[in-house]
């Protein structure tokens, strides 16, 4: 493993921006294009927002973000100990949202999958959710 950081962040909506800035600062040493940085920022923003609004339902909690780089692959793991996802397949379907009354689009996971090379979700009801994403830098 080349480099690694672990960040614990309070589940406040203004920390969405902080999390993606940290992920971008971490990714910088892999010499990404501006486009790649923006894709990583967008994916991180989706996952952290989900932890805050779906995992913790806007109550207090800690969102954990781990970033690792190995050769030119960046792995980002975002986890919460919130309410968890009952049906992961359904949650990952494009346009599915558990909050149809709000202005959620149900596109969070789809965007993560589009902008990153792999997205893996582990979750258990009542225990929390971990989203692990990888992206190879320097391929486009």
């Amino acid at each position, binding site marked *: 493993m080349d480099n690694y950081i672990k960040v614990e962040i309070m589940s406040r909506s203004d920390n*969405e921006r902080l999390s993606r800035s940290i992920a971008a600062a971490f990714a910088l040493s892999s010499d990404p294009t501006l486009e790649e940085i*923006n894709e990583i920022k*967008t994916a991180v923003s989706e996952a952290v*927002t989900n932890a*805050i609004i779906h995992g913790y339902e806007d109550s207090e909690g800690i969102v954990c973000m781990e970033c690792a780089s190995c050769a030119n692959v960046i792995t980002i793991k975002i986890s919460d100990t919130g309410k968890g996802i009952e049906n992961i397949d359904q949650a990952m379907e494009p346009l599915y949202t558990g909050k149809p009354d709000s*202005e*959620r689009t149900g596109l969070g996971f789809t*965007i993560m999958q589009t902008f990153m090379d792999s997205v893996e979700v582990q979750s258990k009801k009542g225990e929390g959710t971990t989203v692990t994403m990888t992206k190879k830098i320097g391929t486009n």
Partner: protein
Amino acid sequence: MRLKLINSKRALIIYLEGEIDHHSVIALRENMDKEIKRTTARTFILDLSGITFMDSSGIGMIMGRYKLISMMNGSVIISCASDRIGKLLRMSGVDKLVKMCETEDAALNMAEEG
């Protein structure tokens, strides 16, 4: 957010600025809805040239404004979206609901026609 009302065309240009995410969208939505409800404009041009970051919360916000404006018989045009934001708008199907233009002039020409 900055506004420009083009009276001759009953068009309101809304310049969005900065980073749009689930956090910033809260205040933005409130401000926009206030303006949308009190203006005499019928065409709303959302100028995205000043947006430096946007995720799916921004898409949700645009769709929500589209619904509100449609209910009031107005129409929405999106102008000056960057490549990345254009990609998000196509992924979500917003481009099927809303006209998209590359420049403000093109948007204003559309407002005249509509």
